[in-house]
């Protein structure tokens, strides 16, 4: 019986079997941010416990930071200020490195981990954020945890967890032009549903996955949790190794071969066992758009919104409520739906390649007069690179607002929010009711390129028709 990556990495990090039957799993890299960590620090203080391995935890601030003039303190939002202060104090008191807005390395936690080389193959990675699955793109076992588990990681560098089953998802073939990593994962979630991954880790493989850049792989792994899978990963390969050269916290040049040797050992064996396999063909994929209020309610852009009675019985009530909220009708097309807001950003799609794709679409065009469009880089490093390439100018010239790094309108914990019933074309990961800051607001998930085109045309448009014309 040959092992897959999950089993290898799990076994390497397993400390013990606990009386409950769960495994005690060592966490190789712990990332924290301002929203889910303050209560965890409070818990260890109440128990008079130290942070066991402060050098294995890194902090940044992302959810609540304003994306305009984010260096001005105190923040106008007193709660945001209080949360930031707590993180500053906790990291200082416990000797944890903190990438604050005063450093060059602040950004969305799932963007900075990889770009700093903190994220590496064969690690276990935990963070109090469900999109921690992003880091699985490197062949790490990475997952979101709650605040009580953050307490455990701070105090013991471990958590109690059961090993998931593994579903191999094979994406054969090649993507057609203007179809992206985002479309792959939205299709997988539409096919397997938002709960299909419960109890599973998703191993993404096949030619279409192998052909993706690291950033594309991160987009796919990022949204594993939207399909119910807490963990998603890709086996590391030359693309992974090339990305990790010369990263600030990655292996030094002299250690690099040692690192690659280790990384090669943790790959899934070619005859490894899986609990389930799901296959799809990349060549069949189109740009995806969501029509409802969960990420599984998506369609290929040339297809109509499904007829509710054609759905599985258990999905019909949810579909009806979703359509009511969105003010869409079954059987109609998403094409031509007028948008009010366009958001390029989030831990799903705010990396340099995402911004390049978006800029490529909008260059020389203007955002439709009725659309409010913002572009939010995932990190200060992404912003710096984009500005070096003149992308900020492209966005500004087109009428997008170019902002500072943060989570921004993905979950609207900062001042960036939808108003009222606004419809937002969004490159983020969740279209839940209320997610973007207005409880009556509406979100349509799509790739950054499709968001950019919707911004220009003022309505949802099939990018293939425009770009091939």
């Amino acid at each position, binding site marked *: 019986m040959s092992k897959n990556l999950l089993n290898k990495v799990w076994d390497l990090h*397993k400390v013990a079997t606990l009386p409950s039957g769960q495994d005690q799993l060592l966490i190789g890299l712990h990332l924290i941010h301002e929203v889910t960590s303050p209560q965890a620090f*409070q818990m260890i203080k109440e128990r008079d416990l130290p942070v066991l391995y402060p050098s294995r935890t890194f902090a940044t601030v992302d959810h609540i930071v304003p994306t305009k003039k984010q260096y001005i303190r105190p923040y106008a939002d007193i709660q945001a200020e209080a949360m930031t202060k707590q993180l500053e104090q906790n990291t200082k008191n416990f000797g944890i490195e903190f990438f604050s807005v005063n450093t060059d390395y602040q950004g969305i936690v799932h963007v900075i981990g990889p770009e700093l080389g903190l994220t590496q193959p064969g690690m276990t990675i935990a963070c109090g*954020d469900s999109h921690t699955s992003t880091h699985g793109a490197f062949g790490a076992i990475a997952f979101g945890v709650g605040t*009580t588990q953050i307490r455990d990681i701070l105090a013991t560098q471990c958590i109690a967890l059961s090993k998931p089953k593994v579903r191999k998802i094979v994406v054969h073939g090649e993507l057609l032009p203007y179809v992206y990593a985002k479309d792959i994962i939205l299709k997988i979630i539409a096919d397997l549903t*938002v709960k299909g991954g*419960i109890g599973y880790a998703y191993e993404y493989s096949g030619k279409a996955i192998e052909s993706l850049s690291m950033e594309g792989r991160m987009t796919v792994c990022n949204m594993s949790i939207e399909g119910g899978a*807490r963990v998603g990963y890709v086996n590391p390969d030359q693309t992974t190794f090339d990305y990790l050269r010369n990263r600030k916290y990655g292996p030094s040049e002299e250690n690099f071969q040692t690192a690659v040797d280790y990384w090669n050992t943790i790959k899934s064996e070619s005859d490894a066992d899986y609990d389930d396999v799901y296959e799809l063909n990349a060549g069949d994929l189109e740009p995806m758009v969501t029509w409802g209020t969960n990420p599984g309610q998506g369609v290929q852009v040339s297809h109509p919104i499904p007829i509710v009675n054609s759905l599985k019985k258990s999905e019909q009530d*949810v579909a009806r409520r979703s359509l009511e909220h969105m003010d869409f009708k079954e059987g109609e097309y998403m094409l031509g739906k007028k948008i009010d807001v366009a958001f390029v950003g989030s831990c799903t799609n705010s990396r340099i390649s995402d911004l390049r794709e978006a800029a490529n679409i909008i260059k020389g065009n203007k955002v439709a007069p009725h659309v409010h469009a913002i572009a939010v880089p995932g990190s200060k490093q992404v912003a710096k690179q984009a500005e070096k390439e003149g992308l900020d100018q492209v966005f500004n010239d087109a009428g997008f607002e170019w902002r500072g790094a943060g989570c921004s309108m993905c979950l*609207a914990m900062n001042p960036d929010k939808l108003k009222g019933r606004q419809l937002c074309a969004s490159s983020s990961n969740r279209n839940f009711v209320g997610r973007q800051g207005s409880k009556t607001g509406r979100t349509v998930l799509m790739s950054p390129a499709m968001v950019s085109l919707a911004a220009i045309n003022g309505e949802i448009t099939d990018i293939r028709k425009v770009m091939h014309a």
Partner: protein
Amino acid sequence: MLKITTVSGQGIPVKGNDIDTDQIIPARYLKVVTFAGIGKFAFKDVRFDDNGSELDHPFNDKRFAAAQILVVNDNFGCGSSREHAPQALKDHGITAIIGESFAEIFAGNCTSIGIPTATLPPDIIESIQQRIEENPDAELRLDLEQSSFSVDQDVFECSFKPPFRAALISGMWDTTAALLSNNTLIQQTMDNLPYIAFSKKE
């Protein structure tokens, strides 16, 4: 440590599949540095309109004001890892949740704060929800040792994730002490990780 073997009390039904964490507690109410008092934000957006007036929601229904056992449908708690979601329910007075199924991170978070999550088949869940609506005073009882759930005199078999059940029954759901007791093994496992040595230490 507190062993959780039975939970009894009145029930409260919150109907619908795929109720996500943004519904349970919207992100803008996560701007807190403590969980104390967070119960007032539970289901905030579906409980109140923009003027703060109450909408039709079980959490506003006076008949369920003292309820302890939440009865939900499929994939409850999907979405974010925010522990604020179960903490808000707990602060509101919920001490156990039964449903058709639960999102994985949510169920783990519930266990780690001592809230059992038990599953029953969809038709039984629906019938229990209906019975509670008809008779909010019905006495519900979740028995973790027997893996049973009863409504007044009617007893149903329910399921748990075995490690969650074991942790709650044994009082080991607060895991810090058990994890820390293996400190020698923690250090050994850490020492054996190849990447600690070859990663740069800034």
